């Protein structure tokens, strides 16, 4: 009823190929966008910005980058955290070497560096596949984190070995560093994330995306129909690492404000990988759903006992939280192994034919 598609005729190929051919979908997207652009910023508190809204967007972007590589091109990577680190350190070096640089341009450029590093570590993918490739990217993970620790030029020989975001302004408004307000940072993150999501949707629908999917589904068949595997895999590594690098720069500059090398260690890679897997590999929307589950939900759960007026020890809440999130992950993966995005796809399908299922 709500999702009735009857009467929505398409009279041109263009309309048929639109991003959202069903009216209700565009309507829903409109609501989500209005919420993200208007409602949340107007109503959210500092706490909500800092612990829910901004991190969900940044983690979604990182998962989106990984999803292009793993979900669309079928190349398993365990080095996401390190590639985020490359983006963050590249941005830090650009900002400190060239203080006149516009921060947004620096963030967007920092992805170029991680794309370069990503392609370099993607070269083994031309010869090895699956778990073996995962090991190669794991090497990238360990090597890069080691480099962040040992190469003191990267953190400007700071005694503590950590990088700290200076106050950066754009047209008289602070956008990064301690003086920046959360709402400015949120909007900047939202703009960049929306832009990259739009690019990613269109890339994956287009020629390049089809090449990736063909490579993922069966590389020999793809080669036989004339797809250049080297080009396909390396572009996937480049695009994926670019997005991951930008998310890393946002992670430090628009949210954390400071970072030490071990922040980019393997737990971060796994976290992003879990978001991508639980959200749904090979889906764009899944990354957002996954990030809401893994990043947003624990924060909300933590506030529940206090809100209900139950007094429990904070450590106990934390233990309960880990247990609840863990069982939710298992629950969702049992009812839909292809992730939350697939779950939504099924619900939507059922809604379209409701109330007359066949």
């Amino acid at each position, binding site marked *: 009823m709500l999702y009735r598609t009857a009467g929505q005729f398409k009279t041109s190929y263009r309309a048929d190929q639109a991003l959202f051919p069903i009216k209700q979908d565009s309507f829903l997207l409109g609501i989500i966008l209005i919420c993200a652009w208007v409602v949340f910023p107007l109503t959210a508190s500092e*706490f909500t910005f800092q612990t829910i809204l901004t991190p969900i967007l940044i983690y979604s972007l990182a998962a989106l980058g990984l999803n292009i590589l793993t979900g669309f091109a079928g190349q398993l990577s365990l080095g996401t955290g390190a590639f985020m680190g490359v983006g963050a350190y590249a941005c830090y070096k650009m900002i400190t070497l060239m203080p006149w640089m516009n921060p947004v341009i620096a963030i967007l450029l920092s992805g170029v560096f991680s794309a370069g590093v990503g392609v370099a570590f993607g070269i083994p993918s031309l010869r090895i596949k699956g778990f073996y490739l995962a090991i190669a990217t794991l090497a990238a993970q360990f090597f890069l984190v080691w480099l962040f620790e040992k190469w003191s030029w990267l953190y400007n020989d700071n005694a503590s070995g950590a990088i700290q975001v200076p106050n950066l302004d754009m047209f008289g408004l602070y956008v990064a560093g*301690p003086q920046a307000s959360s709402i400015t940072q949120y909007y900047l993150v939202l703009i960049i994330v929306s832009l990259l999501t739009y690019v990613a949707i269109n890339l994956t629908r287009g020629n390049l995306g089809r090449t990736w999917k063909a490579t993922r589904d069966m590389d020999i068949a793809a080669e036989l129909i004339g797809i250049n595997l080297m080009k396909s895999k390396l572009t996937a590594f480049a695009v994926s690492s670019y997005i991951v690098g930008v998310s890393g720069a946002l992670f430090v500059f628009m949210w954390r404000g400071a970072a030490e090398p071990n922040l980019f260690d393997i737990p971060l890679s796994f976290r992003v990988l879990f978001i991508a897997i639980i959200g749904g590999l090979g889906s764009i929307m899944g990354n957002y759903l996954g990030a*809401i589950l893994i990043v947003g939900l624990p924060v909300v759960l933590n506030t529940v006992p206090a809100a209900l007026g139950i007094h429990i020890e904070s*450590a106990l809440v934390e233990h309960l939280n880990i247990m609840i999130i863990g069982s939710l992950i298992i629950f969702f993966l049992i009812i839909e192994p292809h992730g*939350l995005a697939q779950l939504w796809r099924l*619900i939507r399908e059922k809604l379209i034919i409701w109330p007359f299922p066949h």
Partner: protein
Amino acid sequence: MKTFNKLALATALSVGFGACAIAEGIYAPNLTYRTGPFASTGIPLMDGQKDYMTLLNERDGGIGGVQINFEECETGYSTEKGVECYERTKADAVVTQPWSTGITLQVLPKTNTDMIPILAPGYGFSPMANGKVFKWAFNPPVSYWDGASMIVDFIADGDKGSLKGKKIVLLHLDHPFGKEPIPVLEAMAEAYDFELKLIPVGLKEMQNQSAQWLQIRRERPDNVIMWGWGAMNASAIAEAVKTKYPMDQFIGVWWAGHDADLKQVGEAGTGYKSISWSVPQSDAPMMADLKTHVLDAGKSTAEDPDSVFYQRGLVMSMFLAEGIAAAQAEFGVAEINPEQMRWGLENLNITDERLAELGMTGMVPPFSTSCSNHTGHSGAWMLEWDGEKFAPVSDLLMADAAFIEPLEMAESMAYAEANAPWPMNESCE
């Protein structure tokens, strides 16, 4: 729809509840880590901190007649959770106790805009001592740089000339915390002509230090100084025993003097030393009160009230309580705000008389803070493990101020410059 619903729910919940941690009395949250990789060392300290506040609430009805709401927010030592806790508590809190160098580094730049004092007793960033730059941060009673200086002083035994030609190894956690003493030790190595060898222990190798100890055995250093935390200390002590490194040449920072770490080697650890600005005094009058009002009343989760770490936790909360009391006396209000709390922490005056009044004689050296000195530089004792417990083996050691002050000045100014525009506290002379 799903995305929207979840987001909306998330926002509604947090908008509604995020700010509703309104507390009765004075809200002084503690960002604890009773879970995660460092929990074993965190728990006794945090028990001590909580129990001292419970004692004041039970025995005296709080401070100045106001109950202290010493709520905990669990971080598991993760900086991400730490920032979450900071954001959650900062609206009502009079102070923030970040409890990790990583979280301190993250929170430090925000304090000028959020106007909330950071209390980091015995940890954090050593240049925080310069109150002119770090208006809102406090790390009494000694900084890591003081600690490094006192350890070198102890090794030299009063005669700095004797350091010439010695070889000293710094076994440190490869992390901002572990790197803290390096600038001071390097400057001292140059001035006193001893050889300093840095041996880092990665966060991932904390529990497997065979490579590091092999290197120590090869280097044959005169002394090993350890800047370790959590699982690293227990493994280092076990490795030292295994490689038969002479324990009396092995000195740790105050976070490397956890009773439980040494109990596992027992007799074999005899002679191991740890510099400490707090000494357990189990027969102090305050401890007797604590026993009647808190421990025996079943209001505590503490397991070993005689341990160094538990009693250090008590001392830490004493700093905070004294700060609150000072602020109440100065401003004549019971429910102080963060601005007044800052004044209180800046005017701590812990004298021997005051310690006697509190029933805590000998638990911490006397010190006082001021506008320009946010550390107090109290000095510390060297504790030695005698096979069963830690006991002091030195007089009060003092840090070499002539060495530390210029470094503090330079580092804090560099920090301010890197974070320009950084407001200075011009009211200090």
